[in-house]
Structures are given as structure tokens and as C-alpha cells.
């Protein structure tokens, strides 16, 4: 069998493409859900960690540390295979979204915290001196500036979340990787796997480039 027949077999590719596309939609759907939930959770955690009353602040710190320490794959397996013993049974999609966003929230929280702390002290003081309340100080003055600072690392983190969706194939999630392995078994040919790898790259490469662009733009503004 020639190299092309084995790894880049056109007819296998065409046959399995629908399967791969259905996997890709799930990968993207899962990725987007986890990213959005992770961002919301991360922002809440960051605000709690910085400004929450002491007990909540400690809980936020503990959460952030624990979920950055636990390997995502382990968490995923725990959520899907262990929680049912406690009566908590989730679909593969829910389990994967949960595990991904719980971890992403912890990382996002640290990024947002660094962003908020990166806003100059004078901005907080000017906002306070004008009589703005705590909510308005954040929403109108601090967060718009902090978010500009965190766009590159948040994009980076989102790339990681998208990549980590592939781990969901271990909980029988029919995502791109899972579909590709299944298609390879059906076709007895690795072309679907190679295709899936290429699809991941095509999906993520522009985002990786984008991070670089954002970083340069931010650096240029800082000068």
C-alpha cells in the first residue's frame, strides 16, 4: 500500500467526512459552551477573590488552586464515572462541559485578576473620588481597561479549552477525535485520524496567530 493510500486516502476521506464534520460541530459546540461558562465563572471568581467578604474570598482562592491542580482528564473521569455513584448522572456533553468550564474558570479567574490589578491605581482612585459606587467603578472604569489587558491571555486560554475538548472522547463524547477514531476503525485506514489532526490545526492556527497580533498591539500601546 502506498503512502497516499494509507494516510491520505481520498475515497476514505470523502466517505468519512460527514462523520468528521458531525464530530467537529460537537467539538466546537462543546468548546464554545465551556469557554463562555469558564469566562463567566472566572470573572465572578476573580471579583470574589479580590473584593469578596473574607469567607467567600477564601473559598474562591481554594477553588482556583484546586481546579488548577487537578488534571483535566482526571476531573472528567470523576465527573462522568464517579459522580453517578453519588446519584449525579450527566450526559457525556454535560460532563465534558462541566469539567472543561470548571477548570477554565479557575485559569480565567487568575487572568482576570491580573488584568484588574494591572489597571493603574489612579484609575481606582479617580473613580472613587467621583462618587461612583463599587459596581459602576468596575463596570465603567476598571473592567473595560482590564479586559483590554487580558485579551491575549484569555484567547490563549480559550485555545487550550478548545484543544482539551479532545479529552472528552474518553467519556464517549462523539467529538471530532472520537468520530475520527471510529471512522478509522470502520475504514481500517488512518486517513480519518490524519484529517482530524489537520482540521484541529486549521481550526486553531488562526487563533494562535491572533494571540500574537493582540500581544504585539498591546505592547505597542504600552510604549
Amino acid at each position, binding site marked *: 500500500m502506498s503512502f497516499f493510500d494509507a494516510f491520505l486516502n481520498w475515497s476514505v476521506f470523502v466517505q468519512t467526512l460527514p462523520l468528521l464534520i458531525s464530530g467537529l460541530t460537537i467539538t466546537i459546540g462543546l468548546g464554545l459552551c465551556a469557554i463562555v461558562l469558564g469566562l463567566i465563572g472566572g470573572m465572578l471568581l476573580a471579583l470574589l477573590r479580590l473584593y469578596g467578604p473574607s469567607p467567600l474570598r477564601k473559598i474562591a482562592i481554594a477553588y482556583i488552586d484546586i481546579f488548577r491542580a487537578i488534571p483535566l482528564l482526571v476531573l472528567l473521569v470523576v465527573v462522568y464515572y464517579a459522580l453517578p455513584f453519588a446519584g449525579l448522572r450527566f450526559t457525556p456533553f454535560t460532563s465534558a462541559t462541566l469539567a472543561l468550564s470548571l477548570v477554565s474558570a479557575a485559569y480565567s479567574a487568575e487572568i482576570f485578576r491580573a488584568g484588574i490589578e494591572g489597571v*493603574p491605581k489612579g484609575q481606582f482612585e479617580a*473613580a472613587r473620588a467621583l462618587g*461612583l459606587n463599587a459596581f459602576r467603578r468596575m463596570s465603567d472604569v476598571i473592567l473595560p*481597561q482590564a479586559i*483590554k489587558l487580558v485579551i491575549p491571555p484569555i484567547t490563549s486560554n480559550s485555545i487550550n479549552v478548545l484543544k482539551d475538548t479532545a479529552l472528552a472522547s474518553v467519556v464517549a463524547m462523539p467529538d471530532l477525535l472520537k468520530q475520527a477514531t471510529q471512522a478509522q476503525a470502520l475504514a481500517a485506514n488512518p486517513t480519518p485520524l490524519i484529517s482530524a489532526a489537520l482540521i484541529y490545526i486549521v481550526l486553531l492556527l488562526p487563533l494562535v496567530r491572533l494571540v500574537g497580533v493582540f500581544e504585539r498591539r498591546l505592547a505597542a500601546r504600552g510604549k
Partner: protein
Amino acid sequence: MMAPIIDMKGVTKNFGGFRALDGIDLQVAEGEIVVVVGPSGSGKSTLIRCINQLEEHGGGTIEVDGHAVRKGANLTAIRAEVGMVFQSFNLFPHLSVLRNVALAPVRVRGLSWHEADARARKLLVRVGLEDQIEKYPAQLSGGQQQRVGIARALAMEPKVLLFDEPTSALDPEMVGEVLDVMQQLAKTGVTMIVVTHEMGFARKVANRVVFMDAGRIVEQGPPQTLFDAPRDPRLRSFLNAILSH
């Protein structure tokens, strides 16, 4: 005499073990222009920052227009009546000049954007920036930025204006334009407390000059008396140092 608009009694403030304010008694009447001078580190900034609680004081009492200023008090309401102009301007870089000025009237006073923009325009004309309204702070010179800073504070129609070395970060050729605006302002009857090293301004505009050293008010009085007949040796050496450079 009418009740003072600012009333500080025995105010102290420590930073760690360091005593930055050591028993400050200061009463400022409505409409009065008080200039605060003193060597670096004497506590001038700390004093005015306690008035709007950017710094929390330790001991003593502070009242603004009869309202006690302390932790847990309704600080946003008090701050709404006390405008502040910073040495480093602290304009909001993500907002246009107009929105810098209009923001607090909308968010704190409950004006509509339409009303607040109109108020902001008027004030920006008053400080000579009618052509810069749509620009962003980074596009302005230091002197222009500081005039926006003044307009921003004025937009809240505060009872008291605090200035912390408003011209110290400016290139010399821009100091005049900011002092001119402040001098105009002084004629409007607003109460002003100004920390500055601009002795010419103090002489022309101040009703009273307060000299601080090591966290205390050492001497105070009308500018002529204080500058031309200083009694305390610390004030004398401070004035000598300033005049000799």
C-alpha cells in the same frame, strides 16, 4: 461664623509604624480658598486624601458639610460633593474627553446622557477645550488633560474641590493654562483646598495658606503674612529653599 464645610479635629493617620498625620485641626469655611504647602513627605497629600477617604484616617474626626466621614459612612454620597484633581490627571483612557466629564453626573447624579453631555460641553468650553471634545485623553497635552480633569471634577457640581499638586506633572509652559483655569474657578465661590508649590498662585488666590511639616500644621494665615513674615523656623527654611531655586 457659619459652620465650616470641612471640619477636621485631631486627625491622625499612620502608615504602618509611620505617623503621616499627627493631630490635624483644620476648618475650612464655605467659599474659602486654602493653599497647603510644606516639604515633601509632610503629609499634604495624605491630609486631603483623608477628606474624601482615599485614605482612611486613624484617629480624630472629619466632617464634610456636617456629615461625618469615616469607614462605613455613606462615602459615595460624600465623595459626590467633594471633587478631586490629581497630579497625574487619572483621566479614563478608554473614554472620550466628553464622556470622561459626563460619566459621573450620569452614574452618580442620575442625569440622562443628553443632559450630562450638555453639561460636559459647557464645562469643556469653560476650560478652553471646546475643540477637543471627541478626542481621547492620550491625544491631549498634559495641560489639556489636567483641564479635562478639572472639568470632570466640576461636572459633579461639588461643594468642595481638592487639588493635589495639579501642575507638578506638567511641562513648565503648560502650568500657566491650568493655573489660569483654577484662578477663574476661585472667583466662582467654590471651596478649594489646593496642595501646590506655586507660590505665585497662593499669593494671588489663597485666602489662607497652611504650612505643614512632619504631619502637623505648623503655621497658617493669609498668604502675605505667611510668606512675608514667617514665624516658625521650619517655614522660614522651607520658603528659603523654594525661593532659592
